[in-house]
């Protein structure tokens, strides 16, 4: 369906340009925190909400709008397209960025490296380029926006560029981003065949099965590097702690999802009907990523690093969903493929919301205390109630507890796993259901990680005296956090309309929708042919009712007033804050059980030590096994190549001379 004037697409472009304009406006007074924080960032947030509203309208309409702008390469103007898949991710971008921008308005202060106005420009350009990635419909404008996204986010990561470790983190990020972009470029190169570089031409190009597989694997590598699929995840735990918290939230919540968008676009749209075995690669990698991310998150002591590994884990969940979708779609099971795709998309939305809440929460803690190390935090729920309670919603959601949103997508994913035994390929149909066990283990570990994260930061007693002075965040920050936490609640409590909207994407990509909910309307029963259902509203009502009844019963049965006395201290007398369980201590069982995963350096105190010190450094084996040999090999090759450079003009002239003679001789002989 092509409308004469693509209103929604035009509106979308206008909003993206609005972001650019807001960014540029910051340059008027680059040093002014007031201009950037109180005016521009909230303005950017409004644009974000408008974009989300527009995208939802487009999604519900279900149409496809196309447009060609006369800019770009000669012979290849910019093709743009707004379809259900783009709309879902645009809605994700708008809604999440809106909340994060509100928070950022209160967050950025002077003295953090980049001037606020310039930071605002980078930030809003980052947002606009992510939006452009989602509506681009030719390889050139897609890659241009993709690179703009990588560069602006790089500058945002190195906001505090005066510290060398932050520059190093930025470099790792930039390197991985470019290696990935190169793979994507090659994938597009394979896909367009001999035709023009538009997505439309790629859809109609007929690739041989071998080349299609090459294109898929290249795209998986490229987008996987951006998303943080193990073993390409190494930049995440470096870049996220380095970046300011709103930027971490944006990168983890939204940018990783543009990579998911990319792989969905390539695998299910541009390459035509997928081959079933392609799905096994993202499935296996995704499952491994889940386990890997969850385990490393469990042993971290830096709160932002912990969240970065948790993002790795969630990307694993998403890629597992993508893998299942492809396997089912390629095996002629469109209804089940639709279910897996819905789980994937739902998890994207969920992760955007909940991970943003958590990153912003750490940002507020960081600002209030100046401390990222879990070992020096604690008891903040008394000092920062707003942050603590809103973060709690995010933490419960990411741990996958009903009735919040994390549960819905994991439940959908597990439901689709249950169909794995119907895949018409031996062994595979035995192995896929086993993957479910990994997902469940990952979910359990995620819960463990969140207990650690939340408990060590907010509960217990402050581990440092300075924490007594911590203050709650300002109203803009509260507003941003509250919006995102509200998003977690809404996505958790209202899965039926969300699934209804997402079904348009499954109709577009795999040609099937899940059976529309149950007869009751508020029970989610999306599984074809099986009578399972989930009603979060019922669950919530029941939970609240049980809690209220219990409280009432306790009040009625034990009518005494509450007595406040100090806790029993086993007669020891002086309990200090240092006697609490620490982040290291909490993670120890995991470290012990999954020892082969970690490369540990321990520093243990001797029994007679007067000032005992315990230290443990955990590294990823992947550095010593993959990346360091890779670096050494590259350097060795570069050194061999450097021998060509002699520094003597005669030798250089000789190179030209010999080249000339050889070429002439070739011309003579042919």
């Amino acid at each position, binding site marked *: 369906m092509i409308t004469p004037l693509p209103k929604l697409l035009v509106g979308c472009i206008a909003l993206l340009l609005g972001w650019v304009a807001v960014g540029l406006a910051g340059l008027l007074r680059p040093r002014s925190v007031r201009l950037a924080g109180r005016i521009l960032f909230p303005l950017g947030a409004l644009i974000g909400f408008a974009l989300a509203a527009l995208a939802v309208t487009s999604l519900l309409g279900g149409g496809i709008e196309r447009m060609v702008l006369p800019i770009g390469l000669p012979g290849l103007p910019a093709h743009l397209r707004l379809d259900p898949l783009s709309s879902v991710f645009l809605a994700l971008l708008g809604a999440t960025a809106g909340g994060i921008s509100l928070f950022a308005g209160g967050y950025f202060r002077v003295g953090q490296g980049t001037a606020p106005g310039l930071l605002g420009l980078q930030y809003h350009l980052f947002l606009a380029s992510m939006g452009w990635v989602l509506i681009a419909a030719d390889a050139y404008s897609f890659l241009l926006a993709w690179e703009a996204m990588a560069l602006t986010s790089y500058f945002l990561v190195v906001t505090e560029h005066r510290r060398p470790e932050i520059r190093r983190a930025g470099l790792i990020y930039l390197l991985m981003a470019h290696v990935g972009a190169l793979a994507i470029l090659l994938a597009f190169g394979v896909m367009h065949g001999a035709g023009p570089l538009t997505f439309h031409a790629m859809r109609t190009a007929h690739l041989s099965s071998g080349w299609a597989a090459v294109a898929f694997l290249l795209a998986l590598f490229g987008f996987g590097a951006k998303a943080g699929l193990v073993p390409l995840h190494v930049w995440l735990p470096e870049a996220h702690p380095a970046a300011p918290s709103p930027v971490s939230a944006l990168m983890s919540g939204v940018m990783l999802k543009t990579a998911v968008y990319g792989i969905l676009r390539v695998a299910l749209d541009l390459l035509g009907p997928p081959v079933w075995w392609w799905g096994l690669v993202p499935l296996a990698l995704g499952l491994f990523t889940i386990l890997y991310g969850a385990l490393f998150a469990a042993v971290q002591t830096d709160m932002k690093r912990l969240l970065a590994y948790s993002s790795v884990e969630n990307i694993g969940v998403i890629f597992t969903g993508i893998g299942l979708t492809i396997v089912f779609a390629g095996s002629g099971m469109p209804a089940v493929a639709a279910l897996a795709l819905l789980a994937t998309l739902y998890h994207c939305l969920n992760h955007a919301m909940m991970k943003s809440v958590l990153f912003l929460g750490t940002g507020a803690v960081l600002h209030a205390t100046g401390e990222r190390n879990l070992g020096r935090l604690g008891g903040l729920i008394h000092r920062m109630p707003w942050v603590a309670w809103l973060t709690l919603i995010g933490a419960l959601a990411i741990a996958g507890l009903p009735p919040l949103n994390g549960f819905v997508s994991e439940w959908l994913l597990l439901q689709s796993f249950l169909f794995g035994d119907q895949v018409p390929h031996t062994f595979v149909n035995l192995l896929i259901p086993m993957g479910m066990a990994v997902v469940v283990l990952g979910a359990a570990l995620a819960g463990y990680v969140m207990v650690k994260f939340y408990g060590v930061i907010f509960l217990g007693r402050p581990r440092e005296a300075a924490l007594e002075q911590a203050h709650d965040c300002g109203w803009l920050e509260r507003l941003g956090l509250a919006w995102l936490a509200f998003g977690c609640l809404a996505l958790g409590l209202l899965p039926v309309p969300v699934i209804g909207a997402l079904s348009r994407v499954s109709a577009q990509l795999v040609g099937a929708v899940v059976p529309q909910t149950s007869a009751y309307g508020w029970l989610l029963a999306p599984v074809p042919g099986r009578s399972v259902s989930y009603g979060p509203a019922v669950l919530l009502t029941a939970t609240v009712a049980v809690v209220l009844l219990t409280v009432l019963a306790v009040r009625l049965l034990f009518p005494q007033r509450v007595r406040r006395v100090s806790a029993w201290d086993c007669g020891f007398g002086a309990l200090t804050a240092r006697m609490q369980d620490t982040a290291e201590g909490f993670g120890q069982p995991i470290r012990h059980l999954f020892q082969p995963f970690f490369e540990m350096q321990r520093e243990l105190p001797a029994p007679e030590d007067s000032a005992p010190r315990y230290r443990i450094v955990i590294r990823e084996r992947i550095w010593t096994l993959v990346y360091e040999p890779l670096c050494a090999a590259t350097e060795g090759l570069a050194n061999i190549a450097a021998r060509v450079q002699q520094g003597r003009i005669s030798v250089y002239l000789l190179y030209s001379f010999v080249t000339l003679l050889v070429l002439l001789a070739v011309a*003579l002989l042919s």
Partner: protein
Amino acid sequence: MTHLPLDQQLLDSCAALLLLLSFAMLSQRRIVTLVNLYALQGAVLAAATLLLAWRTGEDHLYLSAALTLALKVAFLPWLLHRLIRRLDVYWDTEPLLNVSGTMLAGLVIVVFAFALAQPITRLADTATRSAVGIAISVVLLAFLMMITRRKAMSQVIGFLSMENGVFFGAMSASYGMPMVVELGVALDVLVAVLVLGVFFFQIRERFESLDLHHLESLKEHD
């Protein structure tokens, strides 16, 4: 042996002279003489151009002969002589390959160049087609000279002599290049020499010598 017209014979002898001068430059270590040889090469080139212009009646060849005379016989040698005096470089040091070795290499190159010229000669229908081989030889010999010398000055002269070869090649294969190109090349050569002159002063300032092996220290060390 067929009887050739006089102007053809004259043209061929000009070509032979050019080649001879190239070999002379290859063996010459005194830089002042090198410049003189270069000027002589320019003069022979101008004469050949004039001859060709008279023979074919192409007007632009007269202009290009005049340009050659002004630039390559008068102005550039004068500039180079001035540079030599101001920089005080009269001799090149021992070349990287000794003179007899260089001459032998030059011989091989000339044979190669003539082999190379054969297909071009067959295609061209100009009066001077036998000279294409010589033009290529002049280019390659000048290149060889640039490789074997140590002083920057000799290399500049090699570069200029190479341009002579290109010019002669264009002339013998197709009666010269279009006027615009020819003017452009002349301007290029002029600017290149001026810029290199500045470079020489800078190099000497920095290393107190024009010997190029000092530049090796500019290489990036690992």
